[in-house]
């Protein structure tokens, strides 16, 4: 499972990466690969990941991300603001797995 997290500069999603990794360890998920990048770099990385989770503060870029994700056939979703604010690795990991299944 490879998850790409995207925000304005890759800083605040960077906080989330560790939380999600820890959560993954708790659940004994192997091969969990999580990476945070800025929205400007998303084209460089998107091919290497299964799903894309986007921070709520850049939802003004939705059109662009939608077009990119669908052209690469990747699932994407915006992270819920409350989950994002609490840096809730648990809920956001669930969201990523939800995207995998669909």
């Amino acid at each position: 499972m490879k998850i790409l997290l995207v925000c304005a500069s890759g800083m605040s999603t960077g906080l989330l990466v560790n939380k999600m990794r820890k959560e993954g360890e708790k659940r004994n998920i192997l091969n969990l690969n999580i990476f945070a990048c800025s929205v400007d770099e998303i084209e460089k990385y998107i091919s290497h990941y299964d799903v894309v989770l986007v921070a709520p503060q850049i939802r003004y870029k939705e059109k662009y991300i939608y077009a990119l994700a669908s052209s690469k056939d990747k699932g994407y979703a915006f992270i819920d603001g409350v989950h994002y604010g609490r840096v809730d690795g648990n809920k956001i990991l669930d969201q990523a797995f939800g995207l995998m299944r669909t």
Partner: protein
Amino acid sequence: MERVIQFLERHLLPVVGVIAQQRHLQALRDGVVSTVPLLLIGSFFLICAFPPIAYLAMLVDPYVSALLTVVNATFGIMGLVASFSIAYALAASYAIDSLSSGLLSVSSFILASPFTKEGYIDSGLMGSKGLFVAMIIGLLVVEVQRFMIKKDIIIKMPEGVPLSVGRSFAVLLPGVVILVSIFIINVMLARIGGGSIPEVINRVVTAPLLHLGSTLPAVLIAVFAIQLLWFFGIHGQALVGTGVMAPIWLAFTQQNAVAKIAGEAVPNIICQQFIDAFILIGGSGTTLALAVLLFTTVKSNQLKALGKMSILPGFFNINEPITFGMPIVMNPIMMIPFIMAPLLCVITTFVFMASGIVDKPYVLAPWTTPAFVSGFLVTGDWKGAALQVLNFFIAGIIYYPFLKIWDENKVKEEQEQMNAQLSQGNKTTF
């Protein structure tokens, strides 16, 4: 209040989205921001050349001019670099061969900038003076190229010719058209005694724009817009700060560095560091003080947890846990201090620098540099750090009463939840 919010969300946000995704604005932003790593490296050498401690300054004195060569090669060619990267970014967005567009743009930029009498490239036009020239030329070069490709006015190679060879021929005709046009404009301007392309652009575009950008109301409006967007949960700093204001603020940054090198008085109060170091203390909304208050004074369990989580990122000016976790986003109570605090800090910072009490910034530091360090670093003046402390306390005083209201709300909410759980628990036991 709710209606106002709904109205703004329905009518303001789509406009914001369109502006943010506008191709040319995005290319300008990406192109100009791509110079920042160079400016940061240059800043390091700028500090070394002018250390803010007298004893160190005496030690480096013999090496100053050697150290400044690096500053010249970074700050000094900001415009030249941007002429490449702006065209590169715009061409990439059109899926035109971006390398050749970038190179063509550099060539056009140099052609448009008159050489010195001795026949050398005029280094004075390669920095921020050339920035807006680079912006206009960079965009035009790519647009001409795109137009000609669209109308099929390019040299096509027969099949079997390697792709890269074909591409280099495709740029030939547009390149000739662009360079010849600039050449003709140069000659015409010289004939009518109108000076040069950079002079015209500086007079018509740059000077009014920079004059406007250097005023207190302009910064207040920009910061207000940033805060308002954040209230809607949108990254205002990325959109307005980097997206719209960066070329202006970074041009001021460059001017300040160049003045410092030349031994002149640092001219601009407003610049990138003004915002990064003195307004965004803890992130958009000057929230470091709020993070500290959350860490030390609240009673609600939820806010206590938030305080623990947000204080460390806050020192590095990252505050998404607060904006989304408290939340400030869509929270009319917290919106008031969230907008007031940075606006007041703009005013205090402006006043202290305009009156000469605190030195104006000339070094660029990464925006993640912790407060209280960054103030000293960018100004080379210990009073810069003191001003940050002052702004920190001003923000704290503004946030405190609103935080108390929100904290009481949260405590009540938590108690109600507890009671509900208790009564449910009682029901099941009986």
